[in-house]
């Protein structure tokens, strides 16, 4: 492991931030209406200065109300999943771990489906009703996190193997409940559930939700980052890490809770989008090495870049229709994973 300097970390992150910026600009330009870079810049400045009240043009409304929020959501989801994936892979010491491995996505899906089922029977204010599905999803995720945490404890501490098994079993149990609910439901509700499960970024959220999401990201990713050095030591083995003075129970707890929180937030607004949390950490490890102080921030950028690219292709390739981003990431992710696997073996 090369010694880390602040300078090198900064340069690497700046390079990735530059790529993300270019990707975002391309994503902002691509879509149903063409936008010139000049008009784009002018409108962006107007939004920042005047809080968006002045934009009247057709493309301006579309870009500011639909495209930009969607790209921002993609950045959040991609970064969260990649950081959570990195965390889980280190915590469980398993290269196949991804953010969904401990059943959080199934818990969120079940919560969302229950919300879809009950919402027609409640007479709520429209703005509240609109939050019910993401809220249900997040509560489902939180309940799963708690349940798996208690399943994964041995002698008062989290045990990696027990946690993994407990999470996988909880996930498949929840999937069985979802199956049951879906087969006993008919018509449009069923369709809604199926689409929710496919994972996509087209949901239009209330502006306040974005603040909650980004706050959650800063908290979760920040917490995981504080354990980065410990995660490095953990690479050489759990016993070795303990001998080197790592407070293993605390590290496990922090990473588990924070990574699950990130996953829960991401799933609650986008359904489950596969392969990002699994693959991005692997790619970043190949490029930047396995020092978690570098791997965590670079994975965040990498996840954001991957999801924004996948979603931009998905929403522009077959207009006026679009492909769900989950399908795009899986189509690209599976072959890439196999390629990485073969290359490592060669």
């Amino acid at each position: 492991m090369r010694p880390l300097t602040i300078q090198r970390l900064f340069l690497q992150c700046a390079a990735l931030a530059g790529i993300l910026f270019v990707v975002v600009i391309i994503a902002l330009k691509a879509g149903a209406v063409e936008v010139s870079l000049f008009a784009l810049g002018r409108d962006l400045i107007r939004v920042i200065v005047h809080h968006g009240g002045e934009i009247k043009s057709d493309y301006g409304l579309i870009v500011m109300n639909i495209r930009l929020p969607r790209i921002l959501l993609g950045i959040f989801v991609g970064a969260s999943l990649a950081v959570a994936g990195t965390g889980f892979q280190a915590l469980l010491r398993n290269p196949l771990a991804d953010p969904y491995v401990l059943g959080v996505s199934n818990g969120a899906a079940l919560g969302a489906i229950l919300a879809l089922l009950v919402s027609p029977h409640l007479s709520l204010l429209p703005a509240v009703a609109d939050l019910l599905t993401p809220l249900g999803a997040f509560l489902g995720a939180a309940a799963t996190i708690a349940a798996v945490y208690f399943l994964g404890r041995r002698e008062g501490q989290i045990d990696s193997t027990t946690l993994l098994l407990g999470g996988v079993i909880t996930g498949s149990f929840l999937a069985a409940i979802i199956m049951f609910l879906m087969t006993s439901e008919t018509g449009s509700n069923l369709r809604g559930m199926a689409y929710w499960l496919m994972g996509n970024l087209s949901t239009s959220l209330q502006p306040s939700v974005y603040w909650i999401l980004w706050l959650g990201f800063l908290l979760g990713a920040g917490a995981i980052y504080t354990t980065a050095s410990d995660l490095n030591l953990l690479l050489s083995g759990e016993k070795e890490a303990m001998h080197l003075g790592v407070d293993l129970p605390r590290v496990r707890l922090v990473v588990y809770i924070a990574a699950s929180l990130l996953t829960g937030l991401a799933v609650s607004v986008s359904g489950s989008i596969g392969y990002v949390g699994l693959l991005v950490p692997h790619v970043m490890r190949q490029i930047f090495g396995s020092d978690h102080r570098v791997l965590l921030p670079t994975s965040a950028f990498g996840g954001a870049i991957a999801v924004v690219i996948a979603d931009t292709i998905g929403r522009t390739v077959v207009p006026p229709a679009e492909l769900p981003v989950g399908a795009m990431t899986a189509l690209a992710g599976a072959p890439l994973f196999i390629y990485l696997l073969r290359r490592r073996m060669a």
Partner: protein
Amino acid sequence: MRHTTRFRLIDIGGLLLPALLAVMVVAPTGWAQTSSPVATSAHAQNSATTQSGTAVQSFREVVDETGRTVRIPQPVMRIVSLAPSLTETIYALGLQDRLVGDTDYCDYPPEAQKKQKVGGAINPSLEEIAHLRPDVVLVTKHLNTLDTVHSLDALGIPSYATDPRNVDEILASAKRLGDVLGAVEAGAALAEDLQHRLDVLRQKIGALPPRRVLFVVWTDPLISIGKDTFIADALRRAGAVSIIDSKQDWPQVNLEEVAHLQPEVLVFAESHAETTLQHFDVLATRPAWRILNAVRDRNFAVISEAVNRPAPRIVTAIEELAEKLHPEAFVEKPASDKVSGSTVLDAKCLCAR
């Protein structure tokens, strides 16, 4: 891909596996292999009726709408329907007494719910079907799977498949079904009556410019209909045109495109108008939806869910939508008060049920 397997496979429950979902998007439909252009009107009347004295059972050979030749025992006394649309058609033909089984989803007319259930349309219980000893099982290509048909073949149970792709074919299909099931006159009368209603409607609104609409199947994500579906054809009959020009049957639509094309009216198919009303209030709070003029001006129409089923009742849904989109054409005395026939759509009038 033309024939919406996407729904069907998802309904089966390919849960939470992005890879599997990705496969679904490109999965071929089992039916596609048998798809042949045989849906022509004249079907083979090779009545293979055994005239010789001792034969007990007589059969009739017909070619169904997917081009398969089916031997059906005569007369048809016991029918199992594997699709809500077929169940509705059987009732419309007055053959409900011969319907011995239908699916969990067959909810119209309400009496149909009391028939013996054989499970869902996608995965019916073959044991239950065999137990009912049907003379013929009715299936439809847009909903049932080829697997089911093959399994029925293996059990020696004849299955007759329909495949109507537009309103004309829905009428023709109902008429043919009447013939196949031994109710020729009822089939002809039904088709004639429906055709007459469509003709009357065309006289009323045929000359009016069509309204540009977005047919909303689902909002999160936004799902609409493709141009080759019978629903798109039904919209055309109702004096509307879908703004979505997609070859997929149930495309997930990019909201940007919708904002760019700005539909005049959003059309929802829902059995409970209040639910849609509430739903619409929710949409109106979202920044991305508020830039649609139709959402801001509350121009939306709720019509019967019958529009989703290729059955005779679709004509009722067409009439309903036509009246909501072109109220001026349905005013009885247009001479007395010309001003009220304004072209501006009013949310209240659209939702009045």
